[in-house]
């Protein structure tokens, strides 16, 4: 077990070294071209610093250290530390996600318990589900008139469907044996909902939440690129406008790491409610 783990860790390290090595070789500065661009830059009266081409691994390393050593600085609307940007994104995702839970879990319960409501709402869900959450953005901006809250709305609308569908499915699929036990014990509806149906459907509901979180984290980047102002998505777009590819790559890595952390956190929760039949 531990030997296998060691082997896979070593292999991962090898992949990493190969990848970074290849990257390093591919981005080695080429003498003449650099000279030519320097000349061109001088002619244009600009500093040569930004036109060095694709950043090397060493430059990325430098950028990472620089950004992480001062994550919370704030020098005006277009220059904030990565920590502040992430906090904005996480707050939007958290808020939209919570709202989605508050709506989707109870509604999913009702849908799952009543075949009538299920059939009645199914066409709406089927039509609304495949809509890209960003398509809602104009409507959100027009009605809410606030770009930040519109971001929250977009997160809400993309998180709600997997949770709703999974909750409904989980509730509808609760084994009739357990419901019959509750019936023969004359268990009241509310107690049945919380002590039989909820624990029985919890793993499925958490699966929906995990899918939702994945989608929400994908969508927030795009949404923030669109509305601007703050957030990790805005940071990516802003650094692209600054032609600072090193910062863009740093932001991409950050998005990946945070997304993984969010997924792991919900995975933990999921493990807590999972049962073996």
């Amino acid at each position, binding site marked *: 077990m531990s030997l296998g783990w060691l082997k896979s860790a070593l292999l991962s390290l090898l992949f990493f070294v190969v990848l970074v090595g290849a990257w390093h070789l591919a981005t080695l500065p080429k003498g003449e071209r650099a000279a030519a661009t320097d000349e061109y830059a001088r002619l244009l009266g600009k500093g040569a610093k930004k036109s060095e081409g694709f950043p090397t691994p060493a430059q990325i390393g430098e950028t990472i250290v620089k950004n992480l050593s001062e994550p919370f600085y704030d020098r005006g609307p277009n220059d904030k530390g990565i920590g502040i940007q992430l906090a904005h994104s996480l707050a939007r995702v958290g808020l939209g996600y919570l709202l989605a839970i508050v709506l989707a879990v109870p509604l999913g319960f009702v849908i799952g318990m009543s075949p009538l409501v299920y059939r009645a709402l199914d066409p709406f869900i089927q039509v609304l589900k495949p809509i890209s959450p960003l398509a809602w953005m104009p409507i959100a901006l027009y009605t809410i008139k606030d770009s930040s809250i519109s971001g929250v709305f977009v997160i809400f609308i993309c998180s709600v469907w997997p949770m709703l569908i999974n909750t409904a499915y989980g509730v509808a699929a609760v*084994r009739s*044996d*357990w419901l*019959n*036990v509750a*019936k023969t014990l*004359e268990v009241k509806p509310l107690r049945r909902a919380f002590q039989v149906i909820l*624990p*029985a459907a919890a793993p499925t509901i958490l699966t929906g939440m995990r899918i939702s979180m994945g989608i929400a984290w994908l969508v927030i980047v795009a949404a923030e690129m669109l509305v601007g102002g703050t957030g990790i998505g805005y940071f990516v777009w802003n650094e692209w406008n600054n032609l600072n590819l090193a910062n863009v790559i740093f932001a991409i890595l950050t998005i990946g790491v945070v997304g993984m952390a969010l997924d792991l956190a919900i995975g933990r929760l999921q493990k807590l*409610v999972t049962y073996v039949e």
Partner: protein
Amino acid sequence: MAFLEIQDLKKTYPAPGGKAVTVFESVNFAIERGEFVCIIGHSGCGKTTILNVLAGLDTASDGVVVMDNREVAGPSLERGVVFQGHALMPWASVMKNIAFAVKSKWPQWNAIQVQTHCQKFIDMVGLTGAEHKKPAELSGGMKQRVGIARAFAIQPKMLLLDEPFGALDALTRGTIQDELLAIVQATRQTVFMITHDVDEAILLADRILLMSNGPRAAIAEIVENTMARGRTRHDIHHDPQYYRIRNHLVDFLINRSKQVQSGAADRVAQPPTVRPGLVAPGDAPARAAANVINLKH
């Protein structure tokens, strides 16, 4: 009036083509307080439906069930059910599964009362020490013991068992049968049980209801177990009655269950009671005629 009376019970299901299929009809029988009654019949004759109607989980198309002078309409804590697939909640421990039932019956009890009560029934089925295990950590026999403890723990007026030992291996089944028998005799519990196992029925039941094949099944005969109570798995086969009863039951299942169905038109509402155990070995061919006693209530 008997403790439990089933009168003219009938169940039909809608079939494609607008015609309804009658699973069983004219089902009449009664169970006295403290009696252990088994029902035997082939698959599809509607045994489980009858049990579910008694439990209040299903409704009959026609007929009434009266328990303790009250009509059975819907599930009730007065009737405990042991389900075929044990139906334990896999996320809760043994103790919590039983406590769920106990709290349903006595919501005003405090945690200590609930726990003491649960412990008593966990001990009764021999699961002391396994209180905090989840069902997945238990063997099939232990799971079914929990199911039995849960049903007994609410101290119902009547216990309904739907083939509780069907999924168990022969050894475990024997042990739990013995335990169930001891508990039932100690508590004088009224029991209605479905089984496929002829030996199980003879060991446990005071009376055995024989159902004809479906569709349009009915109770064809009621076999009275004339062997004294207190019979055990170890000595039951030394009693000559055992083989007579067993032969009678097996003969019914293999041969007669079909014939009764084909002659469904003229069957009587009240099934005859027979006592095959009391027939001397010589006059076997005559037993059907000689031992039919019409039981009038």
